[in-house]
């Protein structure tokens, strides 16, 4: 008996420890329960790299980590999933638009000089670009407000398209304008020298409002020693000419400036520059975040965005909790009715089981999602199964006329092999799901797997210890606490 008192003390100590741990460490809730945004990006192979390996993923993740931190959403997490995907979770964030923009861009910043003898054409194209862009923005605004925009000057559009070598096949007028812009952009790029320096040589980036117009912002840059030198050389080579210094981001011209003749001798030294390209406070901040994070070594694509509102999350958690608790209450009632004293013991053991489960979730930690809760509820079913198996065996032994204590011991040992087999087969599927599955499937497999492991422990240790402990009291040591008296063999038989 002393042996069981020792076990009993251990179980009690574990329960108290689990309870205290849970009070101090709150459970981590998934985005489907607390609301927020989740973005999945896929890293695409490009250039010389045909397969995305662990090293490339590390490099991409480092850059995205810096960008995400720049966004300033509390408790955001970025995790590698599978071989080529990253999942960003933004708890509480309702509008993932900015995050999607910040994540998706390569952010390759380049400083390039304009090719000699292209001044007139370059200027013409830039002028055309700003005109076309202004028309397009105006029309988009009008359409958004539900107004019908004025028809375009089709002759002018046609002649412009012909000069640029476009066939004008796009479906709508807006599409045609967008096509035009794209063509102008690529023509502009053709007129630039290769990059003299890139975002790699950047030390920091910042932003500030323009002095004459506080609604317009500029982004400030600081280069390292090598970058400063390259920047000085670059500006020196075009100072005093009509050639412009072009700044491109992901192959798009974002700013172009002339360099005054006073820099003819030494170029712009000191390693600092500003980009002023019609930025609002928000777009300036996004560019700053991207530049600070550095450019991505490989292109990425946002392949999944999930957003769930916090009240929807709260509703989910409330309903699932109600369901789980009412289901458990019914199971508890059933156990007591069907198995009497051991049924009540099993209810105690199962309460401990639930407590241990939650403590393990907090300890690892497991992020609780809706499928995770479903896995937990299902694992309770399996934990009950273990108890049912044992009690059925005990009843069998009692019906054969064995003594109570002997029946209990035999019941546990006879049920042992089928409990182990049943749990292990479930565990095998859990392992397959956890290591090969994705997202939701993983969360489900994690809670079910933990549940199955703990169920082995509680059924074989907690139930047994509690039962043996109670058998120490003579008042409880009666076969009629286990079986209706009618089913017991009569002593003479």
């Amino acid at each position, binding site marked *: 008996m002393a042996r069981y008192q020792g076990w009993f003390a251990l179980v009690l100590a574990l329960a108290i420890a689990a309870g205290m741990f849970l009070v101090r460490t709150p459970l981590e809730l998934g985005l489907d329960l607390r609301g927020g945004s989740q973005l*999945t990006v896929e890293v695409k192979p490009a250039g010389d790299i045909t397969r995305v390996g662990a090293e490339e993923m590390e490099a991409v993740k480092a850059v995205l980590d810096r960008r995400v931190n720049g966004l300033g959403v509390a408790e955001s997490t970025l995790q590698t999933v599978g071989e080529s995907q990253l999942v960003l979770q933004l708890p509480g964030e309702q509008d993932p638009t900015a995050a999607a923009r910040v994540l998706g861009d390569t952010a390759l910043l380049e400083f390039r000089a304009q090719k000699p003898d292209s001044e007139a054409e370059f200027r013409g194209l830039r002028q055309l670009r700003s005109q076309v862009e202004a028309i397009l923005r105006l029309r988009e605004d009008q*359409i958004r407000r539900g107004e019908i925009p004025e028809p375009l000057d089709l002759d002018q559009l046609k002649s412009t398209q012909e000069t640029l070598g476009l066939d004008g096949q796009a479906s709508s007028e807006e599409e045609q304008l967008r096509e035009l812009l794209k063509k102008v952009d690529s023509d502009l790029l053709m007129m630039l020298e290769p990059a003299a320096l890139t975002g790699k040589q950047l030390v920091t980036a910042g932003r500030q409002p323009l002095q004459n117009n506080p609604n317009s912002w500029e982004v400030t840059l600081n280069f390292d020693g090598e970058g400063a030198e390259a920047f000085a050389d670059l500006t020196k080579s075009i100072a005093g000419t009509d050639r412009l210094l072009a700044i491109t981001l992901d192959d798009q011209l974002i700013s172009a400036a002339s360099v005054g003749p006073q820099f003819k001798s030494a170029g712009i030294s000191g390693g600092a520059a500003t980009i002023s390209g019609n930025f609002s406070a928000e777009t300036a901040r996004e560019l700053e975040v991207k530049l600070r994070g550095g450019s991505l070594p490989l292109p990425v694509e946002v392949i999944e965005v999930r957003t769930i509102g916090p009240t929807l999350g709260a509703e989910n958690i409330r309903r699932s909790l109600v369901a789980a608790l009412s289901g458990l209450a019914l199971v508890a009632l059933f156990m007591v009715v069907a198995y009497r004293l051991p049924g009540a013991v099993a209810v105690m053991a199962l309460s401990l089981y639930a407590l241990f489960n939650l403590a393990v979730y907090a300890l690892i930690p497991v992020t609780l999602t809706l499928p995770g809760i479903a896995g937990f509820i299902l694992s309770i079913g399996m934990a009950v199964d273990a108890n049912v198996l044992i009690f059925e065996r005990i009843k069998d032994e009692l019906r054969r006329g064995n003594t109570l204590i002997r029946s209990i011991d035999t019941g546990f040992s006879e049920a042992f092999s089928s409990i182990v087999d049943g749990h292990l087969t479930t565990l095998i*599927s859990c392992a397959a799901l956890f290591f090969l599955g994705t997202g939701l499937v993983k969360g489900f497999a994690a809670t079910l797997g933990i549940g199955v492991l703990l169920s082995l422990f509680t059924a074989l240790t907690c139930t047994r210890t509690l039962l043996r402990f109670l058998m120490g009291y003579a008042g409880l040591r009666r076969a009629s606490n286990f079986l209706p008296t009618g089913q017991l063999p009569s002593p003479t038989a």
Partner: protein
Amino acid sequence: MTEESSSAQAGTVLSLRWSLSSMRHRVWLISGLVVLISLLGLLLSWLDPGIRAPLRPGLDFTGGTQVQLERRCDDACAELKAIAVSDVIRNLDLPQEEGQPLPNLGAPRVQLLDGGQSLLLRLPTLSAAQGQAVIEAVEPVAGPFLTGGQSVDTIGPSLGKQLLRSSLISLLVAFSGIAAYISFRYDRRYAFLALVALAHDVAIVCGVFAWLGVLLQLEVDSLFAVSLLTIAGYSVNDTVVVFDRIRERSKDAADLPLSLQVDQAVSATLTRTLYTSGTTLLPLLALVFFGGATLYWFAIALALGVVVGSWSSIALAPSLLTLWDRSRD
């Protein structure tokens, strides 16, 4: 560990509560018919021009954007017709994404849920900004919306294929792992029959959802894949316990004919199997009745799997075992 009690057991004649082997033809007929109806459902779904797959694939598998909005209704919701919402979406001019073709909003699917209290939009894959633009455009017609009551899911088309592939791979790995374990602990016949029972359970649950897809336009999502994997695990767990008892009987009462051993083992585990299925069903039914809409069909699939799984482990798998041995004799 069974040694000490075996002598006592051999003398006791176990009462038969259910003589399985005498009704095995009926068991096979029932299982065969239900599996046939299930396969018919899968086939009909495949032939349906709107589905073209054994099961109607949901957003998780096809890719696209799904927007759910909760409307703020103080007393009663203002009258809303789905067609009004889809008109707005059809005429919407989306913001362009760099280097991406503009998604075609020609055929949005608009559903009103909970008596018009919430709105479900199914659209082609949109970027985050475009999704926001849709919500803003719909608000004047169907709003005001509850802040915090909205959800936007966008799944890229490649993700669905990955999900399908990873689900199938994990299912196959789980199958072979379980088969290897049972072959090791029992023998290959038991492993084969456990897999037959498992395939039977999975086929029936798939068949029911195929019928639901054809008749009620119900779509299967990634949670359905999870439920199939769970049913697979549960089915084997259930069957193994019965097999464990059959093995025990064949050791303790080796002189009895196998069909009697099987009958005795099934009778002895009948209470346990029914109780266990019952207690597993209780929380699942609680989820069906009280759980959120997210888990409704998930819980139904699991509950169905538990019922079918119990049937296959107390009736189908053991009765097939008797067939095997007679053909050998």
